């Protein structure tokens, strides 16, 4: 159920992918998404598949662990597939009923979109599985560093993100607990129409908010007690600097995107 979601979770290992600089991984994820949505044709997707599978192999994360994250979005996948399959107009219509129709374009769209979504989830969760939330926010902080010159509080935003990531699992567990406690008092979170359902959520949401505020308050105090300030004297336990492997990774990623785009233009079949 709610615990199965792997997005935002870290999988400890000492693979080369884990060791890469988070900025490289952020850049790579962005490039990967571009490649995924520019990619056309069987050759383009073959290149992407090879890239993805190689990265997973290098990351030493069990394949089953990654696909577990897909369980949470099965419904979304199904809806996308069905919408594309039945609602896309095309030049050859195989079947139709009212506004529903199955066309050649619909079939390819459904296949392509489903693959894209699955690849998107796997690719991005690979990023969070191999990067600790703190590295991730460090990477973001450093990448977005120039923005602080125009008074964007980059450090504060990064700190907020890393704390949010730390507390998501705690709040998920808490939701589970409060839900059970209210169910023991006869609460019903499942039946009724949408308005009734929303109203039924109040006994869950109010305690959750109260608890989140209490935690925030205590955490702020604990941080203050540990001399936290946003001043410049802060140092880093794990400062970011590029290694040779990071530079190699950059060149691999750039060549990967170029290859995908070129093949998509040259051999965009079947599309």
């Amino acid at each position: 159920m709610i615990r199965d979601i792997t997005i935002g979770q870290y999988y400890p290992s000492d693979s080369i992918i884990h060791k890469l600089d988070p900025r490289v991984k952020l850049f790579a994820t962005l490039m990967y998404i571009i490649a995924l949505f520019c990619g056309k044709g069987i050759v383009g997707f073959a290149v992407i598949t090879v890239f993805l599978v190689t990265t997973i192999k290098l990351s030493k994360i069990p394949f089953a662990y990654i696909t577990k994250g897909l369980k949470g979005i099965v419904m979304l996948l199904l809806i996308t597939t069905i919408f594309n399959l039945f609602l896309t107009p095309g030049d050859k219509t195989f079947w139709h009923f009212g506004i529903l129709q199955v066309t050649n374009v619909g079939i390819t769209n459904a296949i392509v979109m489903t693959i894209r979504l699955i690849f998107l989830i796997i690719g991005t969760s690979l990023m969070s599985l191999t990067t600790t939330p703190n590295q991730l926010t460090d990477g973001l902080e450093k990448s977005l560093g120039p923005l602080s010159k125009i008074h964007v509080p980059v450090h504060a935003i990064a700190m907020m993100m890393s704390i949010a990531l730390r507390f998501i699992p705690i709040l998920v567990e808490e939701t589970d607990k409060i839900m059970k406690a209210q169910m023991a008092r006869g609460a019903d979170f499942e039946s009724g129409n949408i308005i009734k359902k929303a109203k039924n959520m109040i006994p869950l949401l109010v305690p959750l908010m109260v608890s989140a505020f209490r935690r925030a308050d205590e955490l702020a105090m604990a941080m203050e007690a540990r001399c936290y300030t946003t001043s410049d004297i802060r140092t880093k336990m794990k400062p970011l600097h590029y290694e040779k492997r990071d530079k190699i990774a950059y060149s691999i990623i750039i060549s990967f995107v170029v290859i995908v785009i070129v093949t998509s233009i040259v051999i965009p079949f079947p599309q």
Partner: protein
Amino acid sequence: MSIILDKVSYLYGKDTSYEIMALNDINLKIDDNEFIGIIGHTGSGKSTLTQHLNGLLKATSGHIYVDGEDIYDDDYDMKKLRGKVGLVFQYPEHQLFETTVFEDVCFGPKNQGLDKKTVELRAFEALYNVGLPDDLYYSSPFELSGGQKRRVAIAGVLAMKPKVLILDEPTAGLDPAGRDEIFDLLKKMQEELEMTIVLVSHSMEDVANYVKRIIVMDKGHIMLNGNPREVFKYYKELERIGLAAPQVTYLMHELKARNLDVDVDVTTVEEAKKSILKALGR
């Protein structure tokens, strides 16, 4: 009203790599008007067990009979069960959500589908029974002290008029005065309201002082099941699973080893005092 567990097992995280047998072949009978303590270290399955008793978790195999009815029958009404077996979670004050104490206590009986008058009557009764001063009935639950909040949360379950009340570490985080108040309250409910009280606890001293029967859980099994004197006889076995007997029990064993003729099975200060005075011929 009795609860019978027949070969109940529960597999946590079924079909995943981290599958754990949280309950393993549990057979247990809980009778009318009992006062039971469940002890075991963290992860021994005691909380899992309590959540089975009111149907929040469903056993992977085995049967649970409440009042002779199998709660896993397709046409069994879970709502009815929640009204018979009340469950108070750890830190129950975290579930309070209404604007007033009174409204919050009404939540349970309202969900049972009772009419407004009955709901309010039950809420009053429950708040009275947990001994909350009546000038606090209409204040916000968030303004109360820790011990008061906890009593309101217990009242919230009590208002559903369960015959069996299960509490998961009802005194966690309270100071000694708050703890004593809760225990006295539970004792009163068991004696005067003739309810069955089942509590999960970490404190051997508290368990020895209040409950009539102790169930010791270890690795999803029931390891021991009996009155405090019987259970704490096995203090060496308890130590092996990270538990212990009350301090006085150890004292009596040590005195016996030094040739003082005391009763080694005592579990409370009161009993120890009597036995020592007797052994010394006073």
